[in-house]
């Protein structure tokens, strides 16, 4: 059994798992859109690829969960390369609409492939995603993102976002870096999708539509583009708000829409725009730094719940 599983009431555990998965997904998108500035409106497509791949791996080939997760991430990354290679030379909104288009195409194709169940989708995926596993993966992804951010690679990505021509003139092969970044972002999305698949147990193409991509994008923008703590906060807030607003059933999405507008007007750079873990650390805010919490060192992997 996992270290964290069963400590909390099942409802909270379920929400925390969802939050964790969304943090992972949002961090992947933050790398693409926040750090490198390439607007991606089709992030859910890569999540979808990861989810389907891992589900097939678990169900048809009986692979261990870790293999299924990695396979999901890798195939999503491979698709990221295939899609990214021709499209990443487009800029701004043209890239955005291409990523959106790919998402819709993928959905449309999945409806027509009987091998993955068409509209009925895949069902009976073993529920292997536990809070412990999500937490471990999330911590790994957060640490990776922090490391990327403060590396030569991360600086190159920000340079591309800030001024692509100046970046090229300073020795950065923008096309190559964008492609690497895009596939890394897609890899993370694929992993998030794999965790999702093994929590929800059922996959249908319509779960991964444009709205899902927008939902993840909202998390990144709300938290503050390019800011890792911001993205984590954004994912947490936006995943919990609908849960908190649960009782206003009919008015919930109405409020959600209004909240987005208000947020952008009063705080266009997001809740924590420009805040990084390093800057928090520098200010002595040790309690927000990853690795400080006692639960950060899980002794063993949780299997099954």
């Amino acid at each position: 059994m996992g270290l964290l599983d069963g400590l909390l009431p099942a409802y909270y555990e379920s929400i925390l798992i969802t939050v964790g998965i969304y943090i992972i997904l949002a961090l992947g998108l933050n790398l693409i859109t926040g750090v490198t500035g390439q607007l991606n409106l089709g992030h859910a497509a890569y999540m979808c690829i990861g989810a389907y791949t891992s589900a097939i791996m678990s169900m048809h080939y009986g692979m261990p969960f870790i293999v299924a997760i990695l396979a999901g991430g890798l195939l999503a990354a491979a698709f990221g390369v295939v899609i990214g290679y021709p499209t990443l030379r487009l800029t701004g909104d043209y890239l955005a609409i291409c990523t959106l288009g790919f998402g819709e195409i993928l959905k449309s194709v999945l409806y027509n492939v009987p091998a993955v169940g068409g509209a009925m989708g895949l069902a009976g995926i073993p529920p292997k995603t536990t809070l412990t596993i999500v937490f471990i993966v999330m911590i790994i992804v957060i640490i990776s993102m922090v490391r990327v951010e403060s590396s030569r690679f991360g600086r190159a990505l920000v340079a591309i976002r800030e001024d692509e021509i100046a970046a090229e003139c300073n020795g950065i092969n923008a096309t190559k870096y964008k492609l690497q970044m895009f596939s890394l972002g897609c890899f993370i999305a694929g992993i998030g999708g794999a965790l999702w698949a093994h929590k929800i147990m059922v996959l249908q193409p319509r779960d991964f539509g444009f709205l899902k991509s927008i939902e993840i994008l909202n998390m990144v923008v709300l938290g503050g583009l390019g800011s890792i703590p911001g993205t984590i906060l954004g994912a947490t807030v936006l995943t919990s708000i609908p849960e908190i607003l649960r009782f206003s059933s009919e008015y919930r999405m109405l409020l959600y829409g209004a909240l987005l507008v208000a947020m952008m007007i009063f705080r266009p750079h997001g809740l924590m725009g420009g805040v990084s873990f390093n800057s928090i650390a520098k200010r002595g805010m040790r309690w927000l730094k990853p690795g400080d919490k006692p639960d950060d060192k899980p002794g063993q992997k949780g299997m099954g719940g």
Partner: protein
Amino acid sequence: MPLLELNEVTIRFGGLIAVDSVDLVIEKGEILSLIGPNGAGKSTVFNLVTGIYPPTAGTITYKEQRLNGKKSYHINRLGIARTFQNIRLFPELPVLDNVKVGRHCRSKASVFGALLRTPAVKAEEKAIEQKALECLELMGLDHKKDEAAKNLPYGEQRRLEIARAMASDPELLLLDEPAAGMNSTEKKVLVEKITSIRDMGLTVFLVEHDMKFVMGISDRVAVLDYGRKIADGSPTEVQKNPDVIAAYLGKEVV
């Protein structure tokens, strides 16, 4: 053997010939200035050399290598670094990180290296920081290393661009109007800095409007007008050249 050689280089934008079969030679260790009226094609020459535009005709050779068709990042790695007329820093990044980016082509940690943070990567990162600090010190900006580049005053932003370019250990430094918008004290400092850069063994190729600045610093001056080179020689020779005077004061003088 010259360091950089432009041989009948031409570029056309639609019907407009921005640079018209220009020949230009830069020798190692000199300071060459390219001057000319507005729209003469000076910055375009820089953009051709740094691979932003591919030339329509002609060849550009750097240390016996053809630069035609090479990408900007490749050219940077070969040892050419530049600044921009309309400052192109990475505004949201801190000053130090701007310079660290400049070191990019002289370091090699990959994505995986960044993720694993191997000792080699850590050592490289340290070296990058060291180099970046040196460059900042050289341009007198080390006390501002943690500030966001966008918050620097104009003159310091120009100096930061030079620091960033220096971080890649270039042999040839292209400076696009480095003195623009500076007051005379700042210019004086800048002249010192550029001269000391040349004394470090670098070759400096600059585009400038300010005649006094150009004449004071340059070993040689070339003049462009309507995309054509109309003069090339020592500052005093160029100042006396009737074509140059005509280009600056108007055709009716001729």
